[in-house]
């Protein structure tokens, strides 16, 4: 297994084997476009996201004078009435249990009250029901979005300064939005709750996506700088070679990042039943996979396309292409290497 990936890495490095990420960009763009459109349509069709109690507020029950404060009883009571409800149960003081659920209808509220009273063996009058407002108010969300916008602007400027071209920043930010939209789409599709934990998962994706792009772009910067002084490869080809050369790193990093997250998602959430962990690890899992994918299939081809039309690069490309047939005539094998198959 390892040696095969190493050999694969060798071939990718020399260009003996090459996957045409840049040249076939129309295919990748189409896939991305379809995915993005789907990701926007799915929430619309499904009627929006499943926001958690922290965003929407919900119903709260307080059971007083309880002798046994076992929280699992409350969870069972709530799901017996509303099967899909996510409830937060906590013990208040010594003898009271607090249950917070999504917003319930009046009939449901009454049923849940009865079920809770029965479960804890108390009088119906010991269960109080009320509405609670969102604890993750609009102001928290707004602040986070403000922070996000400022970050994107600063990241754009910082990358433009580091790479000496704003086109890399543009390609990176576009692929970042692609990642966020698709992750949001998958959330709507699966119907998992959007909780504060999810939002933090989203912010992590943002960091990861940009991070991954910077790593690959740095190799592109290195390669294109060297190649522009030579006449071996066109600009698009040297971008493509850089992506291929970092492909093994992309795969290894993605696997290493995904393994712990996936183990939380499957072992932690399904086997051990931790809902919050499930929410956040799903966001991360999708984000890491999509983030790695989009750097290779979207950000790099887009960057190449942005730059190919520049006069200096066009001149260089023409020179490379004009030399190529002559060289090919001399040594037929050259064409194989140059024409990145």
């Amino acid at each position, binding site marked *: 297994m390892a040696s095969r990936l190493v050999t694969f890495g060798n071939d990718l490095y020399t260009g003996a084997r090459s996957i045409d990420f840049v040249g076939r960009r129309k295919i990748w763009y189409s896939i991305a476009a379809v995915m993005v459109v789907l990701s926007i349509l799915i929430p619309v069709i499904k009627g929006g996201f499943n926001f958690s109690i922290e965003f929407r507020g919900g119903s709260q029950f307080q059971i007083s004078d309880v002798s046994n404060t076992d929280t699992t009883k409350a969870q069972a009571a709530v799901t017996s009435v509303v099967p899909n409800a996510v409830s937060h149960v906590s013990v208040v003081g010594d003898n009271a249990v607090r249950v*917070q659920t999504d917003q319930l209808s009046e009939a449901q509220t009454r049923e849940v009250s009865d079920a809770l009273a029965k479960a804890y063996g108390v009088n119906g009058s010991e269960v109080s029901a009320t509405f609670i407002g969102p604890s993750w*108010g609009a102001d928290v969300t707004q602040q986070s979005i403000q922070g996000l916008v400022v970050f994107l602007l600063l990241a754009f400027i910082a990358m433009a300064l580091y790479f000496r071209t704003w086109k890399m920043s543009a390609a990176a930010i576009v692929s970042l939005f692609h990642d966020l939209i698709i992750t949001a789409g998958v959330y709507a599709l699966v119907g998992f709750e959007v909780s504060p934990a999810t939002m933090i998962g989203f912010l992590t994706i943002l960091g990861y996506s940009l991070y991954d792009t910077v790593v690959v772009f740095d190799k592109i910067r290195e390669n294109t700088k060297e190649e522009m002084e030579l006449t*071996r490869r066109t600009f698009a080809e040297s971008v493509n070679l850089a992506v291929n050369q970092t492909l093994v790193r992309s795969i290894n990093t993605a696997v290493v990042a995904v393994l712990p*997250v996936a183990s*939380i998602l499957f072992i932690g959430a399904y086997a051990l039943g931790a809902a*919050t962990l499930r929410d956040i690890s799903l966001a991360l899992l999708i984000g890491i996979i999509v983030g790695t994918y989009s750097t290779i299939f979207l950000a790099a081809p887009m960057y190449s396309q942005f730059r190919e039309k520049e006069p200096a690069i066009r001149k260089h490309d023409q020179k490379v292409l004009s030399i190529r047939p002559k060289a090919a005539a001399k040594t037929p094998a050259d064409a194989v290497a140059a024409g990145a198959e």
Partner: protein
Amino acid sequence: MAKSTPVKKAWRSLTWLGVLVVVLLGTLTAGVLFSNATWLPKLALDLEGGTQIILAPQVENGQSVQQEQLDQAVSIIRQRIDASGVSEAQISTEGSRNIVVSLPGKPDQATLDRVKSSARLDFRPVLIAGGPTNQVVGADGKATPAPSPAPGLQSTPSTKPTNGSDLAWVTPELQAQFDAYDCKANAKKTSSSAPTDKPLITCDDKNTVKYLLGPVEVKGQDIKDASAGLVQSSQGVTTGQWAVNIVFNDAGTKAFSDVTTRLVGLQNAQNQFAIVLDGKVISAPTTQAAITDGKPQITGNFTETTSKALADQLKFGALPFSFKVQSQDTISATLGTSQLLAGLIAGVIGLILVGIYTFFQYRLLGFVTIFSLVVAGVLTWLTISLLSWHYDYRLSLAGVAGLIVAIGFTADSFIVYFERIRDELRDGRGLESAVEAGWGRARRTIYASKATNLLAAIVLYVLAAANVRGFAFTLGLTTIIDVIVVLLFTHPTLQLLARTRFFSSGHPLSGLDPQALGAVYRGAAQFRAPTAAVKAGTAARSGKEAARRQTIAERKASELAGASTSSSSSDRSTEGKDS
């Protein structure tokens, strides 16, 4: 034999790392032994539980509470709790009247007071303004702390003050208290319960000026509206300067008119009108004219943001009601230890999988990754424990998830580095020089990408609310630790390993076997036609870079022909071996 510089450098780096770990561990141990630090970081509300406080608004004579007012109150309380440095608090409304505040752990009295105190906004005239410290320049020209006020000083004005600006308010006792007042020492006190008809000693909210203020002259609830806007000249042209516009109700207009008419004729400091929110001066504008229409405008060094912030504080700080604590209970964790345990078990299993994968990918080099992760883990644990001791940092479930994701970020630094070394080996370098050259290239990439993460962490930390701040903190922290580990552990370790026979001879299990990496084959073109031949042909034709690589590769090939086991021996012989 004298050690060559890379070896010396490597040992120096490892020594620094050791010193760092010992210092952190020593500080934490001292904290546990002699103070109230704990070995493990404190947990947040969702994992540990905490205290739940239900606040009921106190409304005068049967007024109803509007939902909007309640939301404003939630927002103000959140700002206050954020400002006090407590992370991971939860604030929500309950029913149509109450506010529920849940704080992690057992909050101290100061934090509880901060939550309970009403959002009160008042206008007071300034009597004296001074520097933020209690330093007094004595006759000898040296600054010394002013002594605590001696008991028995005169505490009642000798003549009855005629108005709020009358310096007769400043009794000798008050003057002594003012001199001894230190802004920093009193930074966490809020004194919104200060009597409205007495002078008040306080500071501005940035602790840069301390004030002795007269009694309250205009109440905040008389503010009808406050907004930020650009200053318009009399011709209706904007001057580009930001200002805060206030509109008073009738009572406020009358009171404000009286005070400004008096203040405008006074000397500096006394002509300032302080705006006091929860006992802190948020602004102390100088009166430039008597304002009789109840529509004052505050100008100064405002930006759009700061003027907006002040306008919001004026508008929202002026809530008409204060809160009474209805109940205060301890509350259990909503997620509980079972969830934390589930997360930790899953994380450990994930780490084992990472270990297996890296071993397959990088063979024994994979152990460098695992050890580096362990070092990073130890540093993270130490810093988080120290932070939770000193700054009340609390780990929430989201924070735990952030740490687990950090495994990926951290491991990536090593992967980038290893792959660059392999690239250099493929180009035909010897292992030692491949490690140095690979490091040179990888370092740039690592710095650039980590800088992106750090930027995200800093921006989110500065701009986002407390719950997100905890996450941003974890992200920033792990990024810095990651760079430290690569610099002080991974790279030095590789520098040293590159000198061992096992790695430099390219043992198949080392993960850096030049043969497996295709380095030698490529040089010896005849082994792998046509692709290898192509490479050779291309390289020979093109620029100097490729030419250089080719010569080394060719040399390698001939070496291989001579002695296949010690293919890079000639490379190393001049540098000397680490013994």
